[in-house]
């Protein structure tokens, strides 16, 4: 189990400019949907963008504190286009 605040802190440590939206899908603190918007995704493919977030959350993922993570990543420009 992990709190949304902890997830946000971990992602911000890797991607300081990130805007982060976190949804606890089950209320159990281990199935999360996370949306991350960061300028550091610019010029990167989706695989690399997700790898950056996974790296930030590595510790929580490897010990399965986070059991399931649905992830969406956007550059600020791509995010504007979805709004």
């Amino acid at each position, binding site marked *: 189990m992990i709190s949304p605040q902890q997830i946000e802190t971990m992602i911000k440590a890797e991607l300081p400019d990130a805007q982060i939206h976190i949804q606890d899908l089950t209320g159990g603190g281990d199935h999360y949907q996370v949306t991350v918007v960061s300028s550091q995704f610019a010029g990167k493919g989706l*695989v690399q963008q997700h*790898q950056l977030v996974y790296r930030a959350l590595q510790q929580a*993922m490897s010990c399965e504190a986070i059991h*399931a993570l649905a992830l969406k990543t956007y550059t600020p420009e791509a995010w504007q286009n979805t709004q």
Partner: protein
Amino acid sequence: MTPELKQRIDNLIKENKIIVFMKGTKLMPMCGFSNNVVQILNTLGVPFETVNVLDDYEIRQGIKEYSNWPTIPQVYINGQFVGGSDIMIELYQKGELQQMVEVALAS
């Protein structure tokens, strides 16, 4: 990772144009994320191979290191790591996945 394990994964990816490392099987996915990927590929109506990582602890751990990707499922198309369930959904919705599999199957 042992060289033998790396070789095993190399071969699986090389021998199958579309391969999914997943929990469970095509007919009985054991996880919602793995199920998403199977449903998308079924919808596209393309042939694909699957590896049930629940039956093979070595692959289950090894594929995460191999792809530098911490979660299952993992999809390879034409030898290229495509991603997991989230990326497959996104590529499918954008219509890009259809194109990728067509290119892979034609090559």
